[in-house]
């Protein structure tokens, strides 16, 4: 039997498979299809201090082996979310990962503090990299100093381990990763979406109402593997790797690049059963490559 378990700060996971933020809601829609307690954990939709409607539609465009989204952090605001989380344990018994966003450091801090007392939250993932919000959201993730500031401020109040979620739209992701580590981050999540655009040939206008959107799905997988690999060599804190993962083999590849756990976004929007399929096929796939314990292959590609 292959041992699928992995460890993150404050969380023991049965397996490394974690639906990514914004691609799993709060799990409700998936729980209607199968028992989601098979998951390692899941990250819920990005939450901000104030409620947000997000961007106008169209918010979604197709691309070769991927998709663009410009949802723009639609969410009911942290106060409502905290209340709703009380009901989560009706269909998910494990710890979850909270994803928070903000337009100022205060907003990040506000959200992190609110989550301190939510028992089911195991880790706070701080999204400093959403490309779909105007007014500074992404600036935190593309500048090492701001990234460090957010990290420090959140760490000062958070009672849960803090992962900083990095943007791939940068010249040197290791510089930002190191800045976050130095500022006290307990771990890093990468990658968020790559900034992209499609143009509607009939209308001669960008297809998305927001003009640009975030690219995710298999298309970005090699970029994500490269960044996880680079960051693994640059820092000592654990990494949650994501970006284009869509098979058990991809999970192994991401772990060999350096990920301690693996998030899956777009692939689960296309096929809601993929989490189950991957978890079920992981043991056999791992065995094929002579892997007995998944923990052993974290960073093995270096």
């Amino acid at each position, binding site marked *: 039997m292959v041992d699928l378990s992995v460890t993150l700060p404050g969380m023991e996971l049965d397996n490394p498979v974690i639906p990514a933020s*914004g*691609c*799993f*809601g709060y799990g*409700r*829609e*998936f729980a209607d299809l*199968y028992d989601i307690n098979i998951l390692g954990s899941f990250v819920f*939709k990005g939450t901000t201090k104030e409620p947000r*409607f*997000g961007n106008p*539609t*169209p*918010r*979604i*465009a*197709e*691309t*070769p*082996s*991927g*998709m663009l*989204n410009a*949802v723009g952090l*639609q969410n009911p605001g942290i106060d409502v979310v905290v209340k709703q989380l009380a009901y989560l344990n009706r269909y998910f018994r494990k710890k979850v990962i909270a994803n928070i966003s903000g337009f100022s450091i205060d907003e990040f801090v506000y959200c992190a503090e609110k989550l301190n007392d939510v028992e089911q939250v195991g880790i706070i993932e701080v999204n400093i990299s959403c490309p779909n919000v105007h007014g500074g959201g992404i600036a935190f993730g593309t500048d090492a100093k701001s990234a460090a500031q957010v990290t420090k401020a959140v760490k000062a109040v958070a009672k849960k381990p803090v992962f900083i979620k990095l943007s791939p739209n940068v010249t040197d992701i290791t510089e930002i990763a190191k800045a976050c580590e130095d500022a006290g981050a307990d771990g890093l999540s990468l990658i968020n979406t790559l900034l992209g655009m499609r143009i509607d040939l009939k209308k001669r206008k960008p297809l998305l109402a927001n003009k640009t959107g975030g690219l995710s*799905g*298999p298309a970005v997988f090699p970029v994500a593997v490269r960044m996880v690999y680079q960051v693994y060599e640059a820092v000592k804190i654990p990494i949650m790797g994501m970006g284009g993962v869509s098979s058990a083999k991809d999970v192994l590849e991401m772990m060999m690049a350096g990920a301690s756990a693996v998030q899956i976004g*777009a692939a*689960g*929007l*296309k*096929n*809601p*059963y993929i989490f*189950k*399929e991957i978890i079920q096929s992981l043991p056999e796939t791992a065995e094929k490559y002579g892997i007995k314990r998944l923990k052993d292959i974290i960073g093995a590609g270096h």
Partner: protein
Amino acid sequence: MAEKFTVVTNINIAKDVFLMQLYGNTEKITRPGQFVHIELPGFFLRRPISVCDLNGYKMTIVYKVFGDGTQYMSTLPAGTVLDVLPGLGNGFDTEKSGARPLLIGGGVGVPPLYMLAKRLIRDGKRPAALLGFNSADDVFFKEEFERLGLKTVVATADGSMGVKGVVTDALDQFAFDYIFTCGPLPMLKAVYEKTDADGQYSFEERMGCGFGACMGCVCKTQKGYKRICKEGPVLKREEIVW
């Protein structure tokens, strides 16, 4: 683990319009106006298409070649196995219907009204159909509605068949107490503005998942934000915000 559906027929029934019959587990499809989300090899996102008719495990859809995905669909031979998420969306609520509902369809908004008409008849209502197209070449399903016994009026923009004009130009040919409508946004809006009748309107939006997880398809309603794929595609008249 999504459902597998096998293409039984795939035939051209009007200009760029195809009728496809698929065989598979249709149990999750409970209401007319629901849609299926079809995976096409080589395309990342699925394609949402309304259920047009249901006969046990046989499902009919009617689609227009619009872009690359539907173009590809039109080439699929019988026997092709497709991965489908069936029974998505709320669908039309036939219980709310009056005794004499009018079904107003525009272009590829027509197909879901066919299954709806059958259900309404089964429920003892007396539906009629008003179908809008651009031109006679585009018209489909007129006979099918007539064969169900519906008074059926066609409007074409160029006047090449039936009433010349848009569907709202033919509204006065009907006596009705309720509306079910599906079609392009400008048509839905025109119907809404030209009538006071209560009714249900089916909307379109570009989708990521189709099952409520991504917030890609959200629209504003009188009762807050709704996901077109989950709390839609059908909105009640009183919910609509234009």
